[in-house]
């Protein structure tokens, strides 16, 4: 049972890089595109997180015999 912290680093990396892209685009005055990039990054991360969250809930359900609920 080896859950490593790769996903943590992955999400943090995506966050930092989207922040950098955001600042770069903002500096040259493309605020709208910067906003869009941030939004897209957030949605991608959210998809990853929701995937894992559903995994967790599935496991809790199977462990606690909650199939009927």
């Amino acid at each position, binding site marked *: *049972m*080896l*859950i490593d*912290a790769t*996903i*943590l*680093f992955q*999400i*943090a990396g*995506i*966050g*930092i890089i*989207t*922040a950098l892209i*955001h600042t770069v685009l903002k500096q040259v005055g493309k605020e709208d595109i910067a906003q869009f990039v*941030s939004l897209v*990054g*957030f949605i991608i*991360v*959210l998809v*990853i*997180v929701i995937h*894992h*969250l559903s*995994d*967790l*809930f599935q*496991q*809790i*359900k199977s*462990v*606690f*015999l*909650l199939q009927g*609920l």
Partner: protein
Amino acid sequence: MDIIQIVLIGIIASLLYIILKDVQPTFAFVIILITSVLILMLVVKQIGIIIQLLTSLADKATINSFYLETILKIIGIAYITELGANVTKDAGLASVASKVELAGKIFILLLAIPIISAVVEVIINFIPTSGNHFL
């Protein structure tokens, strides 16, 4: 040693949170969320082992498995509710967190209804119904 892994994940997550908090607060929140998911994922598997032990014990003691199932369901609901409530609280929505907790309590009560009614029935059986005999 899973405990070392869990502690390390916690520490790494807090470091990443500190880094990300200033640049992108939303991503920092996501980090918290994924950390709780990871740690709970690690813990849930261990809980599964404990529950297997409990069920085998209950089988040996010939306890109605329905009761054990209900209790396990209640524990599960409690864990899920707490996770949700904590996450919403971290996001700064304390009022929503309290509502989530309320919902958890109500569902626990709902699950407990058969047990409570069974207990009440047992108690009623103890009380002699034709009381006028003694009068």
